[in-house]
């Protein structure tokens, strides 16, 4: 399990390859990357987080996923600080013997990271800046698990 909370940019493809190469006993690798959208005149995204609690919350979520599904490994990378359009905000990857486990665990990780890991997004655009509001559908997504 690798969990990284960092301000530095990361190379999602290189991370995916490193993650896959380390687990040749599994058959299925699923990755999710969240990107800063370049539409709507957004000029920058700023992500605030709660140092200390962030790593703790993500670790708890990742351990929960490992308990629920048969997984070879879990990767979570999440950035904070300023991000430019097109950049990757975060990624998760799961490795498993079976694709269903890899898919479900990745979706679970995303649903929980969205609403239970202490990150807050602020969008900076032509009309100033504003905090991104939490979506009801993100909270509702948790009821699936």
């Amino acid at each position, binding site marked *: 399990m690798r969990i990284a909370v960092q301000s530095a940019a990361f190379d999602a493809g290189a991370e995916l390859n490193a993650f896959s190469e380390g687990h040749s006993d599994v058959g299925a690798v699923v990755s999710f990357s969240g990107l800063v959208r370049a539409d709507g005149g957004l000029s920058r995204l700023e992500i*605030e987080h*709660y140092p*200390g609690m962030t790593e*703790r919350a993500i670790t708890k979520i990742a351990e929960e996923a490992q308990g629920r599904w048969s997984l070879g490994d879990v990767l979570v990378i999440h950035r904070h600080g300023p991000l430019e359009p097109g950049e990757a905000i*975060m990624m998760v990857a799961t490795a498993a013997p079976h694709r269903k486990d890899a898919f479900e665990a990745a979706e679970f990780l995303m649903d929980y990271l969205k*609403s239970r890991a*202490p990150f*807050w997004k602020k969008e900076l655009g032509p009309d100033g800046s504003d905090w991104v509001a*939490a979506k009801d559908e993100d909270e509702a997504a948790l009821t699936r698990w």
Partner: protein
Amino acid sequence: MDVLYFAWVRERIGQPRDVVETQAATVAELVEELKAREERYEAAFADLSALRVALDQELADFDAPLAGVREVAFFPPMTGG
């Protein structure tokens, strides 16, 4: 006790943390004490349904007891991912 604020809670209160001496038994009682301090605190805590709280870096409820807690954090619903 350290009280931390994040995102727009931090912005409304105008600072990222307070060090508080309190006899409050629950989070809700602490919130009442903070609201009584100044208008900016009252503005930040006006709608508790728009806030979340963590006690020693674990999510908690507003009726949770504060006994033994060293760090309380208030913030809006998370929007990571």
